[in-house]
C-alpha cells in the first residue's frame, strides 16, 4: 500500500522499494519466515549480520540466505526486515546493536556519512569500480569516496502502445512536443492520453523536468540550485500546458507504479517502472515499446531515473574488515549470484553492465532498451538533495502546474531555500 510507506521516493531512492510494493500481494506467507535465520553453516569463526528490506517478489529471501550460506570466510546471518526499512536503519544506527552489513536505497545518506556511521569502501572496491555502471557509481560516490556497493538497479520509463501510435501515424515521442502529440492521438483513439499518477504526474516527474531540460539539481560545488534557468521555466510551463490540455490522464484506477492503467487502456502511454515489464509483456505481447522521458527544449536530453539498493558496512560493527571482504565477495566477485538476484525475481538490471547480457529478461526488446537507457541517460537525486529541499521543490512544481503560480517567483524561493539548506547540511 502506498499510504503506509510514508517516506518513499523522496530522494527518488525508493524506486526499488516501489517495485516491492507492486508485488506486495504475492507474498502472503512472509510473516512466518521473517525471523532472522542463521544461514551460514561451514563459515569461519567470524560472525557477520546482514540486513535486507522486504522485497516483494517471491523467493528473494531464500535466495539471499543461500548466497550468505555460500560464504566460507565467515558465518553470515541474514535478517529480513518487513516494515518501514527507511526509518528502521537510521534508528538502528543510533544504537550499539547494529548489523555489520545493510542495504540502503542509493547507498547511505549524507547524515550517515557525516556521522561516521558507515565506512568508506573505496579501497575495498579498488579497481573493480570500473566494472560498475558509471551513472550509479557517480551517485554512490561522495567527496571522492565510495560509500556502498550497488546490488541491483531499478528504473522508471515510458511505456507506449505500438499499434495505437502506428494507426495514428505518430512517431514514438522523443521530445516533449512529441509526447503531447502522442497523448492526444491516444486520447483520440479512445484510450486516454498519458498517465503518470493520480496527482497528474507532478510527483514522479518533477525531477525529470530538470534532467530532461539538460540541467542538474545542484551546481557542481553543491552550494546552490542548478536548474534556475530559462530552459527549466520553459519545461515546467510546457508541462503545465500538457496538464491542462486534457491529454494527461489525471485519475485512473491504479497508480503510476502499477501497470494496470496502461494494460487496460485507461492510458495509451504511461510512466511506469521496469518492475512492470513482465506483467506488461504478458498482457500485451509485443504491442508495446519503452522510451526514456523525452527531451524538453533544444538543449534537452533524454533521461530516466534509477535507484540502486546498495550494500553499506557499518562503522560500529565488530568485524569491519571481515564485513568489507564479504560485500566485495558477494557484490563484486559472485557474478552468478548477482545475475540471479537481478533476473530471477522480478525484472532488475545488474549493476555491472557486463552482466546485462546474461540477464535473460534484458537480452532483447524492451528489456534491452531499458538497460541501455540507464547506462546512457540514468539520473538519481543528488546526495545533498535533502528531504526538505525535495519537498520545497515538489511543492513549487505543484503550485506552478496546478495552481498557475509564476515559475520564476516560485522557484526563486526554492533557490533561496536551497542555498540555506546546503549550507546547513554541509556545516
Amino acid at each position: 500500500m502506498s499510504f503506509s510507506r510514508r517516506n518513499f521516493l523522496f530522494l527518488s531512492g525508493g524506486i526499488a522499494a516501489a517495485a516491492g510494493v507492486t508485488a506486495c500481494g504475492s507474498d502472503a506467507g512472509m510473516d512466518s519466515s521473517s525471523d532472522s535465520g542463521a544461514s551460514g553453516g561451514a563459515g569461519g569463526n567470524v560472525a557477520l549480520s546482514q540486513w535486507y528490506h522486504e522485497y516483494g517478489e517471491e523467493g528473494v529471501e531464500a535466495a539471499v540466505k543461500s548466497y550468505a550460506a555460500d560464504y566460507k570466510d565467515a558465518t553470515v546471518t541474514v535478517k529480513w526486515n518487513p516494515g518501514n526499512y527507511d526509518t528502521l536503519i537510521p534508528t538502528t544506527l543510533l544504537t550499539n546493536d547494529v548489523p555489520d552489513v545493510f542495504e540502503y536505497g542509493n547507498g547511505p545518506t549524507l547524515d550517515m556519512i557525516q556521522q561516521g556511521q558507515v565506512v568508506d569502501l573505496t579501497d575495498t572496491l579498488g579497481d573493480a569500480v570500473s566494472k560498475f555502471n558509471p551513472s550509479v557509481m557517480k551517485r554512490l560516490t561522495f567527496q571522492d569516496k565510495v560509500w556502498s556497493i550497488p546490488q541491483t538497479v531499478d528504473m522508471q520509463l515510458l511505456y507506449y502502445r505500438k499499434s495505437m501510435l502506428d494507426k495514428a501515424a505518430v512517431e514514438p515521442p522523443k521530445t516533449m512536443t512529441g509526447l503531447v502529440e502522442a497523448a492526444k492521438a491516444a486520447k483520440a483513439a479512445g484510450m486516454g492520453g498519458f498517465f503518470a499518477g493520480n496527482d497528474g504526474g507532478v510527483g514522479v516527474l518533477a525531477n525529470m523536468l530538470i534532467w530532461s531540460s539538460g540541467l542538474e539539481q545542484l551546481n557542481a560545488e553543491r552550494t546552490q540550485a542548478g536548474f534556475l534557468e530559462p530552459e527549466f521555466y520553459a519545461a515546467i510551463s510546457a508541462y503545465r500546458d500538457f496538464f491542462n490540455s486534457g491529454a494527461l490522464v489525471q485519475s485512473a484506477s491504479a497508480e503510476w507504479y502499477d501497470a494496470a492503467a496502461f494494460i487496460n487502456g485507461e492510458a495509451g502511454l504511461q510512466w511506469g517502472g521496469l518492475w512492470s515489464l513482465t506483467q506488461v509483456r504478458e498482457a500485451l505481447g509485443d504491442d508495446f515499446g519503452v522510451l526514456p522521458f523525452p527531451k524538453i527544449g533544444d538543449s534537452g536530453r533524454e533521461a530516466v531515473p534509477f535507484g540502486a539498493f546498495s550494500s553499506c558496512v557499518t562503522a560500529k560493527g565488530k568485524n569491519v574488515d571481515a564485513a568489507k571482504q564479504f560485500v566485495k565477495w558477494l557484490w563484486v566477485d559472485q557474478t552468478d549470484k548477482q545475475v540471479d538476484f537481478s533476473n530471477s525475481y522480478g525484472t532488475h538490471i545488474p549493476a555491472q553492465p557486463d552482466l546485462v547480457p546474461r540477464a535473460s529478461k534484458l537480452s532483447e526488446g524492451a528489456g534491452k532498451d531499458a538497460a541501455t537507457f540507464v547506462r546512457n541517460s540514468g539520473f538519481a537525486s543528488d546526495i545533498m538533495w535533502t528531504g526538505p529541499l525535495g519537498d520545497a521543490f515538489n511543492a513549487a512544481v505543484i503550485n506552478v502546474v496546478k495552481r498557475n503560480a509564476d515559475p520564476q517567483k516560485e522557484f526563486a524561493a526554492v533557490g533561496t531555500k536551497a542555498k540555506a539548506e546546503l549550507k546547513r547540511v554541509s556545516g
Partner: protein
Amino acid sequence: MSQLPASAQGASWWRTLRGFQGRNLWFAAFVAPFVLGLLVFVYIPIAWSAYLSFFDARNTINPTRFVGLQNYRYLLTDPLFQNSLLVFIAFAGFIVPLTYVCSLGLALLLNGLTWGQAFFRSAFFIPTACSYVIAAMIWRLSFFNGARFSLANQLVRGAGGDNVNWLGGTNYWYWLVLVSLRLWLQVGFYMILLIAGLNRIPTDTYEAAALDGATGWRTLRYITLPQLRASTVAVLMLLLIGAFQAFDEFYNLLGSISGYPPYARPPLVHLYLISLGGQQQDLGLGGAGTMIVTALIVFFGLTQNWLVTRADRRAG
C-alpha cells in the same frame, strides 16, 4: 513530655508517611507506575526534544554541535511552514466551532428522544472506533475519487455536472472531503461528552424555568448552555488541541508516494516530512518544530479559555 525512644520516634514518622490505614502507601502504589510511565515516555522526551532543538541533531540523539536558535530561525522563515501555521490557525477557527455545534446539535436531538436513544447514540458514536487511516482510504478511494466511478462523481453526474477531481489540488474541493471526514470521525465522540454534561443538569431547573414560561430557544440560551459550561470548556479545549495536531486523515487523504502537496498541510505533517519524511532523521528541526506548535497550542488554548469563561468572571 518525656522524650520518646528513637525507635518510637521513627515509627511515628513512618506512621505519618503511611497515612491512616496506609492510605498514602496505597496511593503511591497505584500512582507510581503511571507517574513513572509519564516521566519516561512523556516528560523526558519533551525535555529532550527541547534540548535537541538547539543542536544540529541529524542522525544522532547525543548531538555535539550547538546551533542556538538556528533551527527555530530555519523553520520560522520556511514559507511552507509559515503557510501551514496560518492555514491551520484559520482551520482551528473554523473546525472547532463547527464540530462543537454539530456535536451539541446531535446531543440535544438525542437527549430529547423518548425512544431509541441508546441505538442512535451508538450509531453516531461508532465512527469514533474507526481507524482514521481506514476511513481516509474509503473517502479517498471510493467516495471522493476523482475518477468517474466514485460515489460523489456519480451523484454530481446524476445532477448534470461533470466529474470533479476532488483531491487533485486544481480546485478547493479537498476541504469538503477533509472536513466531512473529520466531522464523521469526531462528532460522535464529543456528542457523548456533551450528552454526559446534559444529563447532569437537574430536571427541576427546567421545570422551574418552564413554570416561568421559558421554552425552546430561551431554555437553551439561559439554562442548558450555562449549565453545560464545564463540558463545553473541556470539549472546546480538546477540539482546539486536536485541530493543531491534525495528521492522520490529512496525510492519508492527500499524501502520496512522492510526498504531500503544499496545500492543506498540517504543521505536524510538514514537520514530519522535513525531519523524518525521506531517509533523513533531523531531530533538531523536529524538536524545534514541536516546541513552536506547542507554544501555539498553549497560546490559543489560554486565549480560548479566557474567552469562554469571560461570562463567569463577569457574573462573579
